[in-house]
């Protein structure tokens, strides 16, 4: 039987506030255990939560960026369950009226544009961290993370493959960084994904029973975990069994998902409005000022790259896929916009290749955008050819100086003197009479041979366009 995969994602993004969502303790990562867990975070008797204005502002920012309806009156609820890293015995979250309602986001998969619906996004507090391997007979609890503001972004079950799910997750990840509300650090847990996965026979309207996959902390694992779960469900259904609705933990080491039975019994959270928190009201003025403060969004930037810089759809998509990449690219365009296509090629080509090879991120590049811009300028004004430029670029990466310095010290300046090139062309023709005959008898391809020979004679410095013209002229 042919199956169709149906995926919805729940993304937990830590909002990059200085203090926690309901207390004035710091949210800094990596501090001494429990040094940032105050009385409110510990749920000591008598404490009261007070909502952080920045958490609210950042949630609104997200909502506006995905064109969502903002609930200008929203409510906090208690989600009740017992776990040692949840000191109060409930998590403050939003159930009935979340801050962000329905929105949508556009993704491109294999050249096809697809709209993924966002069901809602709500504010909640993060839990602490349980450490199971520090002591033999105890679980150790660090509550520094307890109370860190989270925005849980829930998608519609609109994705049909692991690839689409990863593309969507990356898109959200990038957007959060564009609008500056989450640092996106997956190793530190600032951005976490749960995937709801089910399958159904192709053509069937009704959704299959879903499993919820947890504990996925990289895009690679997201793809693997989903594919693994799809296979598991197919095996069950094809053998005539039925999929249980359950939470499953992805184990990246064993490459398997396994049932988390303990979660099932507790899956009755008895939500009710938190009496400690009044309804939140968002004024029209606040909405307007946040809207005005939004930076250019990826989708807008992409459209501008196409319209204003003449980039193609693919290049514009790649260059806007990450804020840091777009920032780098735009920095190369300063006083150099006429070479935009060339800059794009270099950023996506040589630069990305070297970054990959050295396992560096774009903001760790050893060549600054300004330095690359100068190199591209020198290609644009015919000082060097694109081929020579690759050597110059490598030397720049090795720290040998600026493009101009390297071109000068290595004597790489392109030969543009017609007389000089002409002499070499004459030599080349004189030394290769057999090939000249071939060319004259109609073998046009042999021209490449002459170009190669002449280039070799000039150590690659001849202006290729000029060289080609002269060769053609002299040969015919």
């Amino acid at each position, binding site marked *: 039987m042919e199956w169709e995969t149906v995926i919805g994602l729940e993304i937990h993004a830590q909002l990059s506030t200085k203090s926690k969502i309901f207390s004035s303790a710091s949210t800094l990562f990596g501090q001494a255990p429990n040094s940032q*867990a105050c009385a409110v975070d510990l749920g000591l008797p008598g404490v009261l939560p007070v909502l952080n204005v920045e958490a609210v502002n950042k949630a609104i920012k997200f909502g506006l960026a995905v064109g969502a309806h903002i609930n200008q009156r929203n409510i906090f609820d208690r989600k009740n369950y*017992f776990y040692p890293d949840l000191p109060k015995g409930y998590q403050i979250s939003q159930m009935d009226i979340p801050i962000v309602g329905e929105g949508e986001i556009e993704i491109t998969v294999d050249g096809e544009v697809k709209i993924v619906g966002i069901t809602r996004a709500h504010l909640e507090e993060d839990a602490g961290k349980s450490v199971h391997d520090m002591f033999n007979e105890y679980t150790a609890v660090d509550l520094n993370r307890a109370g860190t503001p989270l925005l849980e972004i829930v998608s519609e079950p609109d994705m049909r493959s692991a690839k689409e799910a990863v593309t969507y997750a990356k898109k959200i990840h990038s957007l959060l960084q564009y609008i500056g509300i989450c640092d996106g650090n997956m190793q530190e847990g600032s951005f976490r994904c749960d995937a709801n996965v089910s399958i159904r026979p192709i053509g069937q309207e009704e959704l299959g029973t879903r499993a919820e996959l947890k504990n996925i902390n990289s895009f690679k694992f997201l793809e693997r975990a989903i594919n693994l779960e799809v296979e598991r469900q197919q095996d069950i259904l094809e053998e005539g069994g039925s999929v249980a609705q359950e939470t499953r933990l992805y184990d990246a080491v064993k490459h398997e998902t396994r049932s988390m039975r303990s979660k099932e019994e507790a899956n*009755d959270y008895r939500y009710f409005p938190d009496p400690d928190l009044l309804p939140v009201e968002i004024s029209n003025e606040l909405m307007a000022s946040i809207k005005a403060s939004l930076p250019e969004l990826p989708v807008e930037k992409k459209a501008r790259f196409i319209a204003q810089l003449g980039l193609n759809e693919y290049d514009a998509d790649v260059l806007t896929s990450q804020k840091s990449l777009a920032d780098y690219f735009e920095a190369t365009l300063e006083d150099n916009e006429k070479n935009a296509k060339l800059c794009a090629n270099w950023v996506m080509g040589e630069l990305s290749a070297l970054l990959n090879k050295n396992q560096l991120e774009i903001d760790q590049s050893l060549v600054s955008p300004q330095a690359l811009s100068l190199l591209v300028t020198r290609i644009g004004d015919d000082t060097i050819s694109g081929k020579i430029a690759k050597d110059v670029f490598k030397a720049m990466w090795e720290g040998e100086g600026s493009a101009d310095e390297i071109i000068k010290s290595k004597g790489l300046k392109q030969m543009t003197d017609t007389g000089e090139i002409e002499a070499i062309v004459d030599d080349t023709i004189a030394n290769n009479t057999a090939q000249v005959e071939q060319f004259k008898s109609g073998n046009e391809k042999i021209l490449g041979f002459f170009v190669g020979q002449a280039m070799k004679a000039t150590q690659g410095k001849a202006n290729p366009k000029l060289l080609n013209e002269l060769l053609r002229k002299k040969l015919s």
Partner: protein
Amino acid sequence: MSLSEQQVSQIAYLARLSLSDSELKDNTKDLNAILGLAEQLGAIETDGIEPMAHPLHMTQRLRADVVTEVDQSELFQSIAPNVGNHHYLVPTVIE
């Protein structure tokens, strides 16, 4: 609406309450009496009325995003049942 003893027992489990048989019976009876009282509200026409989230007619005041708390972990841990390596210790939880 009324609750069965089995439902009350399930609620007690979720709240980590241990009830003896007689407590279960009493609680079921009491809870159903309370629900019966609340059920009288069903007679009121509530179409078009926005559910109330809070009895106070006020909205939430917001706090500036400023860190003012200092590290008091030593004080807090002095009253904890068990601590080690600056962590709160609890019986092993296995996932």
